[in-house]
């Protein structure tokens, strides 16, 4: 009895936290299946009384949502891929090879990460315009990688330190050079770290709004955050459409966590204690 009482505060806290975290998600989900009148009803319904797929039908037929979805997938996958490649190579050089001044360079990279992105908006736009990259997905990938790579390089630091240097020495004795050592010895052991980096970069890109809103002008290149904002519109809001769009946008961001969430949490912890 006493043990049960002792557990009560913990259970109550967990219950409250669950409601706080999952409550909005539940509300978005059920609202997406309600009609326009039921969504706005002053006495809200916990479960849709007349479930409908109209909001989803309208989302995928009357709006450019499928285009936004495709663009977001392409940009996010490319961002994740290039971030993994760049940050892995950078972290290997900085934290594994004995290069003079590596610590200072690593510090400089983190300083670059601290510059507020919005300060770079206008100059970046002009540079991309000169390079004829404005209104291309490539511009978004380049910007996203520029913002994710410094942090991800630092993130990999803990993973690198967790791999004993004895392995490098043993491989060197067997005749492996730095590149072969990087690809054959370190890369397989770094899979959790790279998963962490990939998930971080994917989600960063998936939710990036500021640069996407400035660098893309064509409707057929817009990404989801911009598309959802467009569905909101000015003066009027179609709440059902917005809820359906939000739900379809959240799901792809959650899926990577289902597969790589364990590594992600572990990766942040590893980075913190090393």
């Amino acid at each position: 009895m006493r043990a049960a009482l002792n557990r009560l505060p913990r259970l109550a806290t967990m219950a409250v936290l669950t409601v706080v975290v999952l409550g909005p998600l539940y509300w978005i989900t059920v609202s997406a299946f309600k009609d326009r009148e039921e969504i706005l009803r002053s006495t809200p319904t916990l479960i849709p009384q007349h479930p409908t797929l109209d909001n989803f039908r309208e989302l995928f037929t009357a709006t450019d949502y499928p285009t936004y979805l495709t663009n977001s997938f392409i940009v996010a996958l490319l961002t994740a891929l290039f971030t993994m490649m760049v940050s892995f190579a950078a972290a290997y050089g900085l934290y594994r090879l004995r290069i003079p001044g590596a610590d200072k360079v690593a510090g400089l990279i983190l300083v670059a990460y601290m510059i507020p992105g919005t300060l770079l908006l206008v100059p970046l736009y002009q540079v991309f315009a000169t390079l004829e990259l404005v209104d291309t997905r490539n511009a978004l990938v380049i910007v996203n990688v520029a913002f994710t790579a410094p942090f991800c390089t630092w993130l990999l630091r803990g993973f690198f330190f967790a791999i004993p240097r004895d392995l490098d020495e043993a491989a060197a004795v067997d005749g492996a050079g730095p590149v072969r050592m990087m690809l054959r010895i370190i890369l397989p052991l770094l899979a959790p770290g790279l998963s962490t980096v990939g998930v971080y970069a994917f989600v960063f890109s998936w939710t990036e709004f500021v640069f996407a809103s400035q660098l893309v002008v064509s409707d057929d290149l817009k990404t989801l955050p911009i598309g959802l904002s467009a569905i909101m519109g000015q003066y009027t809001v179609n709440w059902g459409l917005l809820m359906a769009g939000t739900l379809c946008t959240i799901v792809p961001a959650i899926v990577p966590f289902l597969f790589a969430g364990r590594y992600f949490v572990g990766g942040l912890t590893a980075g913190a204690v090393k």
Partner: protein
Amino acid sequence: MRFLKLKRAAVGALALAVVLPAAACGGSSGPSGGGDDKTLTLWHMEQPPNRVAAFQKVIDAYNATNPEYKVQAQVQDWNQIYTKISSAVQSKTQPDILFTIPDFTTYVRPLGAVRPVTALVDELDKEHTFGDAAKAAYRDDNEYWAVPLYGMVQMLWYRKDLFAKAGITDAPKTWSELLADAQKLTSGSQKGIAVPAGKNLATDQVIYSLMLTGGAGNFFTGGGEVAFDKPQTVAALSLYADLLKQSPSDAGNYSWGEPQAAFNSGAVAMAIEKGQYLAPFEKESGRPASDLGCAPIPQADTGGEPGSIYYSNAAMVLSGDDVRAKGAEDFLRFVLKPENYGPFLNAEPGLFLPLTEDGAKAPSWTDNEVIKKYQGCVDAMLEQSKTGGLFGFVDGQYVDSIGKISGQNILAQVVQRVYSSGESPAAAVKWGDQQMREAVAR
């Protein structure tokens, strides 16, 4: 074995690295602002899918006439357009046609790409007859800087069914009646009125409608200096503070969508907004169209005058050369022809009001189902438009610096100081006056 797997993975990653950028490039269209040799780029900020589709239909109809320059629309976001147009003009990738409102025009003109369209406006005026209020806000330095396209005006919207339940027979005409009705209609979970108090343009506009009917619409001197701190402004803000007490408790976060949602759900009985309340009313409220009432904005009991925020949306021409500019003007001529104007306005029936005499009579507009169903309210909005005004552009003004004031939502901040910080209306108005002076001086 493990090495082989690793090798396959590396090859796969490399292949992806090659193929995916190619896919990314595939969708690239290059810098679009200036369009290609025979395409004019049009930027508008009417993002909801129904408006995008309706505008596109008009553009398609124009392109089907085989003009020398075809038009391609690109939809932009009002929240981003200030930075975006600035960057685009600097990099010479601006659109040929840019939709605008009066204060945004004062922001874009100094960037240096806006072409005067005086001859075109005069020509269209002769052919279709613009209302004076539609044109005035775009005239400065003896030139017109944009072609007026559609108007918007605020009204008092009320739920007739909720009024009947509360025993109220007529819509309020004065401030005291408005407040008394709001108090009477506040009962249980129902609130009398929904007015926004978020730091946004929606709050700017609603408080300004009350300022206009209280005689405080012009807050500049004849010389263009800020004169916001005056008794009429304090009175309007005092009323607003009282109305906020009859509003839902989350009014501090309200913009446009929330008051309409509360109104249609029956959680509130009144709201002050534009004609977007017409089209979705039946579907969202589950009530018949006859339950939707509309009335002019109530006036101050003493010294009040008819009024409401009203402004015309327009199109600026930013083409880099004369030939393209002529192409842009041809498109705007096409839009304002009565047979094309209706489908354009009915992108959001009731919200977008005609600005020309022949447009207001055109069957292409009046035959729309929403316009016919709510004919009384549509007529009332057109009538209200005649006494409408916009901050910085009333009484023949053209205040160059108004964009600095509206861009910072200083009117909304003044409301917030009363609503959230509990400041007195007089002190908040004094603060707003100071902020406006500083904004203008910068």
